[in-house]
């Protein structure tokens, strides 16, 4: 069994992470091995990791090369060089013929020894192949995942993964070999799409998937996070690219299955952000005012009429219905596939719509405790409208102006 920790200049946090992970390995799988995948840190990360692991758990260090940073590129919402780091961990696990492998981020401050059994026991004891994390988060955090990624995963890939783009994961040797056999690692946008790609590879590849409740997730933030538009473009772009690559498979999948959850909820809500709906509504209305001609190229005329009515609605009556949102997301996915316009333009035009959905979601669920039900209904509608996406995918000319 191998637990990989991926790092780059994380001397501040890597010691704690290695200590806690080592404690978890020593308690639950004494024969386990720790692999530190480091991208050439210059701040003594490797030395700190080695001294933290000393006498507790064997530590092997492997290198990975971070891709050259493009000064003109938008800031990345996640871990730059993450794909290369995960690949080096998986290779190290494969070389050691590990029965199970887990990957942890060295910047985490919330990792605990209990994460090890949560991520690895389902593989070792229950023969699951992919263990996705399930973090406890504020109801309005991770809204891109909740509104687009998770419902599309459910409808298209047939698994109800709540956080398909989560950071940590566990996998079996069978899945590990399958992932290593793929060519995705060298893809241009592998860093932003790697988590979604691994989860979808497991979901559609005939592998057994489950979730592990890990409690809250906190990590050290080293750079300013990108704005919502950039993050949305990277995450949704990764999802759409995956949908395009797996078009042959998902069109044959019907229905969806709930997944078993290992571990237990700890009731740790790590953040309590202040949510202000008004600026989101302003951005939606500004978007409609300025971008309706662009949206007209992407969404169906009836959808555009509904968006017009929404833009004119006063705040108390502002409700972005599940059907409308599903239609919007599917139309954007079809436009992504049809190359109706450059992908960054297309994904940029989605931002005001997403903020409109989020504002409506907050208004509807604030104080009602109805968040999970609302998201479940959204997932149902995504499933129900899947035939529309399939039809648009197969006969795009019927859906064009």
């Amino acid at each position: 069994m191998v637990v990989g920790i991926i790092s780059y200049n994380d001397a501040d946090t890597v010691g704690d992470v290695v200590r806690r992970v080592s404690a978890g390995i020593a308690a639950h799988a004494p024969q386990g091995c720790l692999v530190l995948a480091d991208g050439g840190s210059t701040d003594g990360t490797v030395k700190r990791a080695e001294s933290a692991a000393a006498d507790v758990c064997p530590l092997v260090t492997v290198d990975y090369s971070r891709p050259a940073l493009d000064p003109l590129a938008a800031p990345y919402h996640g871990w730059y060089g993450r794909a290369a780091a995960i690949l080096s961990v998986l290779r190290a696990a494969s070389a050691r013929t590990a029965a199970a492998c887990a990957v942890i981020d060295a910047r985490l401050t919330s990792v605990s020894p209990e994460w090890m059994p949560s991520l690895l026991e389902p593989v070792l004891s229950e023969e699951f192949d992919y263990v996705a994390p399930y973090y406890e988060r504020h109801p309005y955090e991770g809204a891109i995942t909740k509104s687009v990624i998770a419902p599309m995963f459910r409808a298209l890939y047939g698994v109800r993964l709540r956080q398909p783009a989560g950071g940590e994961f566990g996998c079996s040797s069978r899945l590990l070999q399958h992932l290593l056999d793929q060519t995705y690692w060298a893809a241009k946008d592998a860093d932003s799409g790697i988590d979604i790609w691994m989860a979808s590879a497991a979901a559609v590849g005939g592998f057994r998937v489950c979730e592990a409740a890990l409690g809250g997730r906190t990590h050290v933030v080293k750079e300013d996070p990108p704005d919502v538009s950039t993050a949305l473009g990277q995450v949704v772009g990764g999802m759409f690219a995956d949908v395009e690559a797996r078009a042959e498979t998902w069109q044959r999948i019907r229905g969806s299955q709930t997944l078993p959850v290992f571990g237990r909820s700890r009731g740790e809500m790590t953040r309590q952000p202040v949510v202000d709906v008004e600026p989101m509504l302003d951005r939606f209305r500004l978007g409609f005012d300025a971008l309706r001609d662009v949206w007209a190229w992407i969404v169906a005329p009836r959808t555009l009429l509904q968006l017009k009515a929404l833009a004119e609605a006063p705040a108390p009556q502002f409700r972005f219905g599940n059907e409308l949102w599903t239609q919007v997301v599917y139309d954007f996915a079809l436009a992504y596939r049809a190359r109706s316009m450059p992908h960054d333009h297309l994904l940029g035009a989605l931002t005001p719509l997403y903020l409109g959905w989020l504002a409506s979601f907050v208004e509807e669920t604030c104080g009602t405790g109805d968040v999970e039900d609302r998201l479940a209904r959204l997932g149902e509608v995504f499933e129900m409208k899947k035939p529309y996406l399939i039809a648009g995918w197969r006969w795009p000319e019927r859906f064009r102006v």
Partner: protein
Amino acid sequence: MWVQLQRIMSEAANRIVKSVAEFVPGILALVAVLAASVILGVIARQVTMRALAGVEFDRRAQQWGLGKLGDWSSAKSASSFVGRTVQWVVLIVGILVALTALDAAIPSRFALSVFEYMPHVLSALIVLAVGSAAAQFFARAVLIGAVNMQIHSARILSFSVKWLVLIVATSMAVEQLQIGRQILTLAFGILFGGVVLTASLAVGLGAKDAVGRAIERQYDRAPQERDHLDHV
């Protein structure tokens, strides 16, 4: 004397007949080439329009910012416009070839000079097409970027960028056509410089308070706008 007159008349008649005999084939060739170019033009138009329909040119032209091609003429669509243009090009080439067939000195020189000029026309058309597509691309990029930066005058910004690129493209196309080179370059420089100077004066003098307030609003609003949600 009668014999001499008869000989002169006969020689004159022979010369006329010979001239007509030399001219008629040219006329026949002209008529044949013209008829062929008319038929070829119609065929070329039909083939072009079918080929363009096959690659969904009208839809793509809209995306590339060439959707208004049809509005510039009586054509119903961009593909119809291109089809008609191809037909007219074939017809004009046919007329020039037909003039050359007459073997007259002036029409031949004219035809040759038109043929020599054609590359300039083609390069000007390419510059215009690329410029129009670039204008559409940059205008949309600026529009989407400005909306996501919550700039309320996003449409004006986008409109300005579009026309700036179109004006530059038009100037380059006219340069390719070698029409009034210096005058046009000078006029463009004066116009562009004038626009920049006017804008600078308007902002610096006329609207400095309004600009100041707008910048203040932007600075005041910035910390509030960044929500603290982790969206991913």
